[in-house]
């Protein structure tokens, strides 16, 4: 079958994607959160595999990662929690994390597990394009997994073209030069960047992440792009209101 991400990108609407840290607030909240997100109309989910040293993340995701690890989350535990997820959930699911836990699990074994579960894509910000292409692309393809690459306002046009050529599904467009959760709202710099990318006519749709916190920023981000990802703002909402409050958050976005 075709990858769920491909099907989703065909839909004639702006996509809302949510990131959360698996194993947070409580170890076994993972499945419930995924199911509630789908029920409330979320289009795609990034399931965060927590890491001890999340270099590209701000305080919110650092804290949720630390709490999840303290709760006992591991790679094996996450796969176990997700083993029946496709019985109840049909939107695209992407695993997002850092490369070292994947490397320790074994890249091939990790991809195989993802395939068995019905994961559609992987985002590993610290697995660079050249290393991926040289060593891991064949494994990802074998298991039908889409590897998602990031671009930022500092990424050169030439590099964006390279990343577009290597991508298959969507490009994760980081909205500003920052770690996650540190800036909110978009200024002229972002608007110009969004327009610059839109004019490049890339073959892959772009999903904007970092700095999206509410309906206003969601609409600004998706004016030119196919969709947007909310992470830190959603996690803050869970921290403050508990996992029963997923629908409150999503309703405020659209």
């Amino acid at each position, binding site marked *: 079958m075709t990858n769920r991400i491909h099907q989703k990108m065909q839909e004639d609407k702006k996509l809302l994607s949510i990131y959360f840290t698996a194993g947070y607030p409580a170890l076994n909240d993972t499945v419930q959160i995924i199911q509630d997100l789908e029920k409330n109309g979320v289009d795609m989910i990034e399931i965060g595999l927590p*890491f*001890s*040293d999340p*270099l*590209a993340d*701000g305080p919110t995701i*650092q804290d949720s990662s*630390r709490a999840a*690890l303290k709760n006992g989350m*591991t*790679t*094996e535990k996450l796969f176990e929690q997700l083993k029946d997820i496709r019985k109840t959930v049909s939107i695209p699911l992407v695993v997002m994390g*850092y*490369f*070292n*836990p*994947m*490397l*320790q*699990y074994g890249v091939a074994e990790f991809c195989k597990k993802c395939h068995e579960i019905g994961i559609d894509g992987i985002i590993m*910000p*610290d*697995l*660079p394009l050249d*290393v991926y292409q040289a060593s891991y692309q064949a494994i990802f393809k074998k298991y039908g997994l889409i590897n998602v*690459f*990031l*671009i*930022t306002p*500092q*990424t*050169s046009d030439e*590099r964006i073209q390279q*990343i577009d050529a290597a991508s298959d599904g969507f490009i994760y467009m*980081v909205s500003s*030069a*920052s*770690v996650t959760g*540190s800036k909110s709202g978009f200024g002229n710099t972002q608007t110009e960047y969004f327009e610059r990318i839109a004019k490049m006519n890339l073959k892959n749709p772009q999903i904007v992440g970092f700095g999206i916190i509410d309906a206003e920023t969601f609409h600004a981000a998706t004016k030119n792009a196919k969709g947007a990802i909310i992470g830190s703002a959603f996690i803050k909402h869970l921290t403050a209101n508990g996992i029963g409050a997923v629908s409150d958050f999503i309703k405020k976005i659209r």
Partner: protein
Amino acid sequence: MYHADEKGYYGEFGGAFIPEMLYPNIEELRSKYLKIMYEDSFQKEFHQLLKDYVGRPSPLYFAKRLSKKHGCKIYLKREDLNHTGAHKVNNTIGQILMAKRLGKTRIIAETGAGQHGVATATVCALMGMECIVYMGEIDIARQAPNVARMKMLGAEVRPALSGSRTLKDATNEAIRDWINNPVDTHYIIGSAIGPHPYPDMVTRFQSIISEEIKWQLKEKEGRENPDYVVACIGGGSNAAGTYYHFLDEPEVGIIAVEAAGKGIESGESAATSALGKVGIIHGCKTMLMQTGDGQITEPYSISAGLDYPGVGPMHAHLHKSGRAEFYSATDDEAMTAGLELSQLEGIIPAIETGHAFAIFDHKKFKPEDVVVISLSGRGDKDLNTYIDYFKLA
């Protein structure tokens, strides 16, 4: 075969495992660092500053009483006599000149013991650049004199509050700062770690140590190559510089001493070669201490500068290939060795450096062996720790 290849690999170790946010910065540095470093004007300015500002060459001193005690010929490479009190300044002088040529105006750094922070704050004052140093909250408490020095030099010291609140976490915070400030900022990494080209660049700036040892030993012993070079290793910058010109000289034994903390099996250690596995930390593939699940472990050492869960990729390769012998010294061994050096030679070493001197607890040398030990830093910053430990007050 012991040097970095074009992509920054030492055998299987090294490379640049960085998020895309850092790609433009790292790529700029990678494509320019060698060209800039070996320009005549750069070399001239670098060596002039090393001579007139740092006070190089640092002496190679024959330690007569220590030699007698341990039954071999021991020479000390006196990096402790450099301006700012350690080898760290060799690299910060090089990198600040690099940053200037790259057009950067803001400098960030991480520090453990505070020696690299002080060396960075110093060169920033020298060049009139803004300086922000990230330091673990625990290290701020145990290295108070260096925090005060950085502040006096005009640097801002920002506490790293996450994780174990030591060197690893300070490095995370510095990397995050660089992600947030990609255009005007240069990150002066203090150790032979991080994504390519950092390990190679730092090693080349520190290689002045072994360059000098060669001609100094020739003057004193009539030969350039000692039988052994010994250095302590956290991330491994003083070791990398001490070994550099001997890597391809097979008759020179290379010895690394890591921090065993309270003992390798104690659960409170920083002995990466014994406890580590291959993985990714701070942008490079190397040996690091981690759980089976790939979470990086909190290390422990009494010395803030060695309290790091990885080693530089060059050292991981030297270990794996068998080119270097790795040992580890406990807190107690390092402190005792530091006291011994103080009382036999009148030199109070940094606690980091004390680990290198604990080699004599682990290895017996022959009477004719010429052993050069990198005396990487002085112990002024550690007086409180020494006083508490030996109840000297």
